[in-house]
C-alpha cells in the first residue's frame, strides 16, 4: 500500500470536513454547502450593491485565486485563511460604522470570523511551523479604500470571492478523496490476489 497516496487523501477528507464545518459563515457549524445564490443576493441587497451585481467580481484578490493544493497541499491554505481572518476583521470594522450594535450582519460576520480562526488554528495544528515565529501581522493593503462605498464594495467582493474559493476547494478535495479511496481499494484487492497461478 502506498502510504504517500493514502495520507493526503485522509488529510484532505479531514480538512474538507473542517472547512465545511468551520469556514462557511452563518451556518451554525453544521456541514453544508457554500452560500446559495439567494444568500449572495440578500447580501448584495442589504449592502445596496445589487445594481449590476457589483459584488460578483471576476478578479478576486491574489490570495483568493485558486485553490491549487499542489505540492504544498493543504499547507497553502494557511496563508489564505490568515488573509481571510484579517479581511473579516476589516469588514467587521467597516460594517460597525454602518449598522447598529447587534445587527444581523455583524453577528454573521463575527460568526464567520470565529470559524475562520478556528480552521486556521486546526491547520496550524496539522501543519505546525518548524520553528517558533513571531506573530506576523499583515501589512495594510496599499489600496485599502477609505470611502464607505469602496469599503462596502471591497468587503462584498472578498466575501463573494471567498465563497467561490470554497466551492472550488470543496470540489478539489472531493476529487482527491475519491481518488485516494480508489487507490486504497486497488491496493487492498492486490494484496488479496492469490500468489502463483
Amino acid at each position, binding site marked *: 500500500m502506498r502510504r504517500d497516496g493514502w495520507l493526503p487523501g485522509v488529510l484532505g477528507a479531514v480538512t474538507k470536513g473542517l472547512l465545511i464545518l468551520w469556514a462557511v459563515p452563518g451556518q451554525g457549524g453544521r456541514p453544508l454547502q457554500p452560500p446559495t445564490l439567494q444568500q449572495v443576493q440578500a447580501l448584495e441587497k442589504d449592502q*445596496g*450593491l445589487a445594481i*449590476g451585481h457589483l459584488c460578483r467580481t471576476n478578479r478576486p484578490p491574489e490570495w483568493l485565486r485558486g485553490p491549487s493544493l499542489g505540492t504544498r497541499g493543504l499547507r497553502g491554505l494557511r496563508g489564505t485563511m490568515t488573509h481571510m481572518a484579517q479581511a473579516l476583521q476589516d469588514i467587521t*470594522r467597516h460594517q460597525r*460604522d*454602518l449598522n447598529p*450594535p447587534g445587527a444581523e450582519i455583524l453577528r454573521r460576520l463575527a460568526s464567520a470570523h470565529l470559524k475562520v480562526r478556528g480552521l486556521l488554528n486546526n491547520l496550524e495544528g496539522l501543519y505546525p511551523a518548524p520553528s517558533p515565529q513571531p506573530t506576523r501581522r499583515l501589512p495594510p493593503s496599499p489600496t485599502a479604500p477609505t470611502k*464607505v*462605498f469602496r469599503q*462596502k464594495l471591497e468587503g462584498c467582493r472578498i466575501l463573494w470571492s471567498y465563497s467561490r474559493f470554497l466551492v472550488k476547494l470543496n470540489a478539489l478535495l472531493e476529487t482527491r478523496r475519491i481518488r485516494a479511496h480508489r487507490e486504497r481499494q486497488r491496493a487492498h484487492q492486490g494484496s488479496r490476489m492469490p500468489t502463483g497461478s
Partner: protein
Amino acid sequence: LFVLLESFVFPVTYVNISKDLVLQQLLVEWDVDKSAREAELAMSFEIQVHRTDVAITVWTEFLNVTLDKSGKPLHWVWDSDFPLECMSHSVRIRSRAEVSNIWSQWSLWKTVLGLDTSNNHGPQIFPNEKIVEEGSDISFCCIGREGQIVKDFFLVPTIPAFNHTNGRLGLLTVKNVTHHDSPHIMVYCQESCNEMQCYDHAGFFVGKPPDTPHDFSCQTQDTRTVTCTWSPGGDTHLYGRHSPKYVLSDEFSQNPILCTVSCSEQCSCSWDIEQQKICNITLTVENPLGKKTATDSFDVTHRIYPTAPFQLWEECTDTEITLYWKLQNIGIELFCQTEVLQPNGKVEVLSYGSVTLRGLQPYTEYTARVHCGAAQDFWRWSEWSEAQTIRTKEAAPSGTLDIWREIKPVLGGRNVTLFWKQAPEFQANGKIISYEVTWRKVEDASEPESISLLSVYNSTRIFIDSHSYRISIVAKNNVNYSLPSVLIIPTGTEEDRSGSELEEEWVNGTDDGIFISWEPRHIYDSYIIDWCNVPALRPCDFQWKSFGANASSALISSAAFVPGVRYNFHIYGSVANRATLLEKKTGYFKELPPLFDPVVENIELTFNAVTLYWDSYPTNESQPGFLRGYHVYVSPLQEDCSLEGSKKHVLPDNSVLCKYSIDNPEEKRYTVKHLLSNTKYKLVVKAYTGGGENPIVNFRYIDTPFNLNILYLLILLVIIPTLAAAICLWKIKWVQECCCPVIPHPNKSRVLSFKEFNIGSEKVLKISDCIPDMLVVDSKAEAQKL
C-alpha cells in the same frame, strides 16, 4: 460737494472669488475706489452669481454697506445649493452710492472653475460621502466625461428625489431626507456606456444630532472617585466612528477627565478626583451632526452614595436581637436604616444607628437588612446590605399540649392509647426534643411510671389496671418542659358504665364536613369529640377536637373524609380533667347509593298480584349510606305502566315504570296489586339510602296466570248450558216425556191438585171439577194404567 457726489459712480475696482468645498460656499471679495472710502459713503452693491450649466443668473443679492476708511476689502459669502465641484460659477458686482441713483458698470465675471471645464477619467459624483441630518435637503451632482452624457443618476434604496440631467451634468435633490432601514444610501451615476469606467458611486448617511443627555448626575461612594451617570438619549442612526462620543470636563480641575464611558441602558464614567471638593462637570456629547452638553455642579460631600453595609452579625436572646454591621470608612458620618421582616410578613423599618429589636418571639426567624446614607446633607441611601436571617434563642414551651386517649379493656386492665398534639395556644419556643408521659394511680401515692418519647411520636400506648389513673404529658425542648397536660382515667367499672346504654344518633354531612351538635351541660368545662378518619383501618387515624364550655355544636371537617364511609363520633364532657362519654353520633360525610340490590328470593303470583320476598339487607358500616327503604318498580313488557296506587317513574329511554315506595328498611316483602292476568311484567326491588339508589340494570320477569274465576264463570254461563242443551236435544223424547208429555200424568197435573176428595192415597177426580176439552175413551193399556 453733495451736488457733485450725486452724479458720481464708484465702480468696483476688483473682484476675487474662491470656493470652500467643505462648506460649499463661494467666498467673494471686492473693493471700491479709495475716494468712496475716504468719503465714508453708504453704498449699495448688486451681486450676481452665474452657473455655467444653466447659463442664467442663479442668484442676485443686494448688499448695503457703509464704507470706512480702514481699507479692508468687502466680503460676501454665498451658500451653493448644488455642489460647487461639478460646474463653474461666476460672480460680478456693480455699485451705487446711496446719494447717487446711478449704478456703476458691472465688473467682469469672475469664475471659479468646476469639472465641467476639464475632462476627468470617469463620471464623478459630488458630494461623494456625507452625513446629513434627518429632515434636511441634500443635492448631488454627477459630472460625466467630456463628450459623454449622464444616462442614469439615482439612489439605492429608491427614494423620491428631484432629478435633472443636462447632457454631461446630472443633478439630484432629495428633500426632507429621512432615515431608512438601510444604513447607507447609495448614489449611482452612469454614463451612456457599460464599462467599469462609466460608473461612479457615492453614499450618504442620514442621522440625527445627539440628544441633550438626560438625568446627568454625579455622586461618589468614597469622596475620591466620582461617578457620573446619564441617559444616552435616542438613536441617532449613526454608528461606529460616527456614533456619539462623550467627553467629560471639570471647570475646577486643571487636569482633563480621563474616564472610560460605558453605556447600556445608562451611561456612566468614573474617575479619581483626589482631594478636590467642588466640581463643575460638563458632559459633552458630539457626533458629526451636532453637539450637546449637560452640566452638574456639586460639593462632593453632598453627593455621598455610600457602599452597602457589610458583615452583619447579631447578638440575641429569646426575645431580643441586637444587630451590628460594618461600614466603609469614608470620613463622613452615616445614618442607617434597618428593615426587619417578621414571620407574619409584616415589614418594619427602624431608623437607628444600631438596632435592638425587642418583644420578639422565641426560636423564630427574622430577616433584617440595613442601608445607610450621609447623616449631613443626605443624598441617597446606599444599596441594601445582604439580608441576615436571625433566629431568636429558645425559651421554655408555653401553653399545654392538647391530649386525648382511647381506652380498650383487656384482660387484667385496660390498654390506653394516648395522643397529643400542639394546641393553637401552645408555643414550642424551640425545637421539641421529646415528650414525657407520666402516669400514676389516683388513690394512692405510688411511684409514678413514666416514659420518654422522641419528638417524632405523637401517641403511645400504656397498660393500666382497673384503678383510676392520672396521666400527664409534657413537651421538652432544650430549655425546659411545658406545663403538664393531665387526663384522669376513671376506674374500670366507671368506664364500663359510661356510655354503655347510649344510642347512636344519625348526623348529616354538609359540603364542608359533618355537623355535630350535643346537649350542653353546665357542669363541664370543656367538650371533646373524637373519631377515626379511616374507620376501616387499624390504626384508624384517630382524631379528636376540644371545645370550650359554651360550645354545643361543631362542624367536623377533615381532608380524610370521603363519601360512602360511616364515621362514628363520641362526644365527651370534661371537668377537672375527667371525661365522660355523653353522646354517640354516626353519620356520613356524603351518603352514596347502596352497594347492591336486595335479592328477591321468593315470588308469589296470582292473576292480578305479585308478592315479592327478599332477604335481610345489611344496614351496618359496610353500607355507603343509611338504608332508608326500598323502591319496587314494575311495568308490563310491551307498554308503559300505569297501575293504581303507583307513581310514574321515567327511565332514561323514556319508558315509564310504576314505582312503589317502602319507607321501612326492616320490611322484606311487598305486594303489587291490580296487575292484569296473563300478562308479562318486569320488576325490580331497589334499596335506597340518603345518597339515592343505583341505576336500574336488571329486571325480574313474571307472567301473571290466567284468571280462573273467569273460567269458572265461563263454564257456568256458557259451557254448562250449552252442554245441557246438547244433552236435551240428544234425548229430546225423554225430555219431552219427562217435562212436557202429551198426556201428563194425572199426579203431575193440576187437575188432581184438589183437596176435597182423597181416598187413601189416591185422589178422586170429579168430573165436575174439570172441564175437559176433549174426551176420549181409550181401552188401551195406558188407560189401564190410569
